[in-house]
């Protein structure tokens, strides 16, 4: 298929663009932050996402969803990124939905996601750098398992209804769908630089039933891989939105702002840097679309996903750095939005592995 949006996807993008810009613009995030909101997102807005059908994009039609793909999810995520909208969309409607897809656990959780009742969080990372290592243990106990260990960087983990948890079982990795009210689970919310909230989770012998297993016991690598591919590709799409938003804001500023009696956008040094940034963002955008299309086609997307996450990290980091620098002093103020883009980009860069992590993975896959 051609590497651009088809008509349906374009229409969805227009819808998402209007919806997010009107319901959850940057001012929405700022208001939540200023109110020191304890959830980190707006539940009414999440309901609206559901009403728009967004939360069902990746849920099969047979399960009541729209049965669309990563391209469509990405279209929404890009607008979320562009507006810095705090939302459980990536974790819940993309990563968790993909992890659950085709498993028995789907029937339990999809309805709530479709209706906007349920928020999911991903308990994957156990150290400050995403690295795939799992120390958390799930031991057989009665009819189910007892989970012991700790997770961190779990976005909305303090208020989520569902936690997707990766743990070691006797012969491999198992992925669990853990209800957040399970006994022995402590969530410590931590405000991050971008004003989002991620939890540190402590599992002190948390008991879950056998039906909490996503897929099969010891066979968690499959759903986990789906979760990670979706999460990485989705985070890349959101980052393209963040970078694109920062770039657009900056280019607009270059066109307006006058200094020494002329528009600063007429300074060639700034023009060349802006043009270079545009090129980086375009390339990043293409890399993301490629990964999305491969995932949707059911083809091997591991390389493309790594490239997408790594490249958006490079391009978006540049976008926010140039954004702040080209705005000058005003760019340093909390009053102006450009700094929020820098903070959000940094958090997303870290999520599901940063540029170096994925570049390193590509290198290893290529045998060096």
């Amino acid at each position, binding site marked *: 298929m*051609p*590497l*651009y949006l088809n008509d349906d996807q374009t229409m969805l993008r227009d819808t998402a663009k209007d919806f997010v810009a009107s319901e959850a613009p940057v001012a929405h995030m700022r208001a939540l932050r200023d109110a020191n909101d304890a959830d980190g997102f707006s539940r009414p807005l999440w309901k609206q996402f559901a009403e728009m059908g967004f939360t069902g994009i990746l849920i099969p039609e047979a399960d009541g969803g729209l049965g669309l793909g990563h391209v469509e999810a990405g279209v929404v995520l890009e607008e979320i990124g562009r507006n810095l909208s705090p939302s459980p969309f990536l974790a819940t409607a993309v990563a968790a939905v993909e992890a659950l897809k085709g498993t028995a656990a789907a029937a339990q959780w999809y309805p709530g996601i479709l209706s906007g009742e349920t928020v999911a969080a991903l308990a994957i990372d156990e150290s400050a750098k995403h690295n795939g290592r799992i120390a958390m243990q799930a031991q057989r106990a009665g009819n189910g398992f007892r989970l012991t260990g700790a997770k961190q960087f779990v976005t909305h983990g303090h208020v989520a209804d569902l936690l997707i948890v990766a743990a070691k079982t006797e012969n491999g990795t198992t992925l669990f769908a853990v209800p957040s009210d399970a006994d022995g689970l402590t969530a410590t919310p931590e405000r991050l630089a971008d004003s989002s909230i991620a939890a540190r989770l402590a599992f002190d012998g948390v008991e879950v039933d056998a039906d909490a297993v996503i897929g099969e016991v010891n066979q968690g690598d499959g759903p986990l891989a789906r979760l990670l591919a979706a999460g990485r590709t989705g985070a890349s799409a959101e980052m393209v939105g963040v970078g694109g938003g920062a770039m657009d804001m900056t*280019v607009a500023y*270059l*066109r307006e702002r006058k200094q020494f009696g002329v*528009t600063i*956008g*007429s300074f*060639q040094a*700034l*023009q*060349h840097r*802006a*043009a*270079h940034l*545009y*090129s980086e963002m*375009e*390339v*990043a955008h*293409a*890399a993301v*679309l*490629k990964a999305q299309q491969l995932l949707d086609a059911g083809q091997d997307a591991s*390389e*493309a996903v790594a*490239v*997408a996450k*790594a*490249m958006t990290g*490079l391009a978006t980091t540049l976008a926010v750095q140039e954004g702040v620098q080209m705005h000058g002093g005003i760019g340093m103020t909390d009053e102006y939005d450009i700094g929020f883009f820098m903070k959000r980009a940094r958090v997303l860069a870290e999520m599901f592995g940063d*540029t*170096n992590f*994925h*570049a*390193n993975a*590509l*290198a290893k896959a*290529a*045998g*060096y």
Partner: protein
Amino acid sequence: MAEDLETFRTETRAWLEANCPPEMRTPPKSEKETTWGGRNPYYAHPDQKLWLDRMASRGWTVPDWPSAYGGGGLSPAETKILREELKRIKARNPLNSFGISMLGPALLKYGTEEQKLEHLPKIARGEIRWCQGYSEPNAGSDLAGLQTSAEDKGDHFLVNGQKVWTSYADKADWIFCLVRTDKTVKQAGISFLLFDMASPGVSTKPILLISGNSPFCETFFDNVEVPKANLLGTLNKGWDVAKYLLGHEREMISGFGLGGAGKDPLVEAARAGVDPILRAQIALFDVRSKAFSAMSEKFIDELKAGQAHPAQPSMMKYYGTELNKTRHELQMAAGGSDALEWESEASHEGAAARTWLRTKANSIEGGTSEIQLNIIAKRILDLPS
């Protein structure tokens, strides 16, 4: 439709299997093994001619041109399949040709029926080798400042002046050339002429480059008579043709940045593992290189669908050429002192170093990186002058 395409793929695969000589499925050993065709063709290996002739017989040197002009008459989808199948067996390009890449699109768009029928089939079969007469001494990036004049002499133009950076002018049979037909205006006084390099008054002088090779010439026109029928497009509207072609040229040059065979030496070097920092640099380069492959695919798809921004080729040219320069910097670092040798047999007569130096021109020829960035800033980002 999808079934037809599957059939096309199967047939194409079988035909290529039967007709692409095994030698032509290996990378060229050196630049000498590149096929350029022309009146006095040079084939380092006899299979080059075989391969060219077979492909030309089906019109597959220019698969998407109409068959009436020597092309294959394939649809975009079929062309894509052919390209994929060629790539699959790692087939060499049967014909390198500025006629195909640089002139063809302009002939198809601006040529009269007579001009198309005269020139396109010879280009498709590799019978006539073309060169491009754009740049002039001291003009540099200010292409439109050109001085070579074409005086109206009734039935012909009398061309006088000098071009520079004419690729392979000393080996070309015909030239497509920007000339000044009105001195009172700048862009609007330029016309686009085609003429035979064997015409009396044409002479060339190769320019020795830092790579030690001479792919470019200075080209002199001393009272060259060019029939009026050789004007492409409208008089004084040659700048439109040139701009149209520059877009195509930029696309082609940006293709240098594409991964493919060029990547392997880097990966090999990284695998050797002697330099952990080089490994990191290669890994990060690889991210950009692979992302740019996706970008190239996206760009071509958008181009075909008429969705690409008209200035997007500038971005492709900028990014692709800078990437290619980086690739060769990394390759030189990986090669160490072996890669510095300039004449030895082991170094294939300095292939690594000469190619590295050659790539430095990527961001100069066909519009410098600076020009591309200007274009992106003004035409895409709408920044003020």
